């Protein structure tokens, strides 16, 4: 799925928190969204996900000019995983049941994902018995269960240990290679360098720079970008 | 997991058992061929004496009317009569009853039974009331007033309260001060309070007999004609509203004045206390 953002703005009580003129993400993009706190990263993600409404402007999904998010073909993973009050298995199965998958197919898919994310031993465990890292892996497995065309992530590994982070990153890369467009908000510039193909830097709701990841993070042209990467606080 | 199942089971058993018994009780009533219900307003002392629990089943059996007994203070019972909220009254405030009839709220009042009041106080009688006036209510009250002895009053317009106030009136005294406690409570509660405070109070003999075992009190004054407690029955004027069960009320009045019931009343208390609690005195028909 490709995403086209057209003059999206978001205002809260007269204050403009997001003002993105245009943004083009091709199918198969892996975009890292970075920027200081309050720069509008999560707002942008929520608008694309359909969880928040833009004050003005449109998001186009796919070349056909769809302005309504195709909710059954996209998904989002949050910083803190919210698992349903049930077993790991049933959590992962939930979106598949919603889409009318056959029980046998659901079983196979769960086994496949559990294998890839090291969750096979946890399938019958209840949601409250999992550690933070395990829960996030389950949330990811659940999100990927139906093979979404668009995957949004809001700081998915901010609270996760390095080992689990590596597993999750591996999974994200693999999913992207299989054709899923990925947009991930992250504070971790090193992670962005590891994963992303393109990078979007936001500051105070506006786009500072958007471009190929390696170039932007290694040799930024924009002075603001330079300062941000150097660890300076952008005002 | 097991603990939860056990608790659920326990809860379920109690719920089912109670509902089952509740339903069984309902069926019992149906077996007695009930044709209606009457609402009897009476006093808490009457209810607390236990008399009604013993004799009312006889009424239901004979007439097919269930009795909803609403036990409140005499004042409220009479007010209920005025408002048409009750079908028939059984109270013990002769003056108030006569006023009730005079005002047209009831066609007539009839004597049913009497018991007497007693003045009670701590067993060792620190104020010396018994020594001074074992059979003279007015003298006892005067001494209590003069010596400012702790006295608990019902202060709730009940029959007992009315009787107490009438004695003060006869003496021309108006009790007030820290020693005179106006509680606003029922007879049982007042006796408990009297026990706690080691004071004195006026009580109907029935409630006193029921409660005496649990207290450190004793009778200090009794037997005075002034301590006479006359009960009366009155049907409420059925023209007040459409819900009044006039037939049932009249049936109750007739029943309680009948010779058989009067005999029942006269027997109540003998088994438990060795002495009858009430003396039936309905006029012979």
């Amino acid at each position, binding site marked *: 799925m490709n995403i086209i953002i057209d003059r999206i703005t978001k205002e809260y009580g007269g204050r403009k928190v997001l003002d993105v003129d245009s943004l083009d993400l091709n199918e198969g993009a892996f975009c890292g969204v970075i920027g200081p706190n309050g720069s509008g990263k999560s707002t942008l993600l929520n608008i694309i*996900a359909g*969880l928040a409404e833009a004050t003005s402007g449109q998001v186009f999904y796919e070349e056909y000019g769809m302005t309504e998010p195709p*909710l*059954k073909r*996209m*998904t*989002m993973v*949050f910083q*803190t995983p*919210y*698992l*349903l*009050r049930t077993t790991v298995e049933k959590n992962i199965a939930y*979106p598949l049941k*919603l*889409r009318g998958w056959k029980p046998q197919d659901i079983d196979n898919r769960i086994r496949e994902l559990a294998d890839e994310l090291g969750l096979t031993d946890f399938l019958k465990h*209840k949601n*409250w018995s*999992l550690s933070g890292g395990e829960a996030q892996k389950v949330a990811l497995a659940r*999100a990927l269960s*139906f093979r979404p065309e668009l995957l*949004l992530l809001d700081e998915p590994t901010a609270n996760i240990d390095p080992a689990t982070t590596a597993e999750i990153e591996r999974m994200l890369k693999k999913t992207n290679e299989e054709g899923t467009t990925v947009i991930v908000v992250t504070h971790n510039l090193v992670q962005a360098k590891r994963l992303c193909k393109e990078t979007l830097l936001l500051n105070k709701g506006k786009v500072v720079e958007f471009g190929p990841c390696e170039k932007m993070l290694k040799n930024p042209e924009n002075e603001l970008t330079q300062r941000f990467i150097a660890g300076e606080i952008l005002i | 997991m097991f*603990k*939860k199942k056990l*608790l*659920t089971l*326990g*809860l379920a058993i*109690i*719920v089912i058992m*109670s*509902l*089952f*018994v*509740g339903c069984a*009780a309902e069926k019992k009533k149906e077996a007695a061929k009930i044709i209606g219900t009457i*609402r009897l307003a009476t006093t*808490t002392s009457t209810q*607390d004496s236990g008399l009604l*629990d013993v004799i009312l089943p006889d009424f239901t059996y004979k007439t097919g009317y269930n009795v*909803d*007994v*609403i*036990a409140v203070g005499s004042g409220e019972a009479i007010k209920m009569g005025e*408002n*048409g*909220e009750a079908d028939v009254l059984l109270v013990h405030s002769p003056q108030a009853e006569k006023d009730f009839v005079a005002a047209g709220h009831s066609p007539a009042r009839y004597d049913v039974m009497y018991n007497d009041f007693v003045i009670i106080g701590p067993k060792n009688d620190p104020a010396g009331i018994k020594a001074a006036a074992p059979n003279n209510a007015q003298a006892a009250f005067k001494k209590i007033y003069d010596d400012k002895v702790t006295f608990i009053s019902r202060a709730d317009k009940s029959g007992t309260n009315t009787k107490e106030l009438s004695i003060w009136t006869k003496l021309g005294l108006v009790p007030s001060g820290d020693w005179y406690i106006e509680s606003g*409570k*029922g007879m*049982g*509660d007042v*006796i*408990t309070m009297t026990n706690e405070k080691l004071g004195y109070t006026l009580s109907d003999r029935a409630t006193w007999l*029921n409660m005496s075992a*649990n*207290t450190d009190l004793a009778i200090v004054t009794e037997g005075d004609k002034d301590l006479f407690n006359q009960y009366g029955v009155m049907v409420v004027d059925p023209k007040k*509203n*459409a*819900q*009044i069960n006039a037939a049932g009320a009249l049936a109750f009045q007739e029943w309680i004045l009948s010779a058989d019931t009067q005999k029942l009343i006269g027997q109540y208390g003998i088994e438990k206390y060795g002495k009858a609690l009430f003396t039936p005195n309905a006029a012979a028909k």
Partner: protein
Amino acid sequence: MDVIAEGFKAAIALLLKGDAQLYEIVGLSLGVSLCSVAISTFIGVPLGALIGTRDFKFKNALLRVIYTLMSLPPVIAGLLVFLFIMRRGPLGSLELAYTPTAMVIAQVCLVTPIITGLTYNIVREKADKVKNIAVTLGAGKFEVLKLLLSELKIGILAAIVTGMGRSLSEVGAVMIVGGNIKGKTRVMTTYIAQLKSMGDYSTAIAVGIVLMVLAFLINSFLYNYQQRDERL
């Protein structure tokens, strides 16, 4: 001190004897409470969920009213209901005064705001998270509602059990509208009050024990369910 000891001894004896009057009273208490809580749940849970997930013009005012009604003194509820159903009152012709039905009505007035308010709190706290997850996993409007109900199940159960506890322990309203009539509207709480005023402490303690055991069982039930708490 020995009054209390005597009371406990007599209490055990009475309970073991299986006194019919006692069981009838317990049965009525449970019946009235279960009935009123059922009705209050039926009204309060959807209402609370609705208020928690929508925004509308008088929302704040409505919430203030609900919160105030949550601490409505039972005697006031009883008095108000009685003024309506007494013979002289506007609904006098229905002959509801001094009946178990009147007791249920009064308790519904007391318990519904409680269940509504507590449900609203649960929903407001968690509904957004549940909705976000449901939407991002592809759930339609109806499926979102289904998920909401199943995810908030435990919180809502807590609200219902709170209502049940309040209803069982209530004495003011049921005394006023019920009249504590033997065999008809006498429940555990009004019976205890009467026994105390008659000086019959042993029976009062016995009934008190039954009431406490029931309260304990109901709350243990909830406690066990709540044990497994969520990690959001």
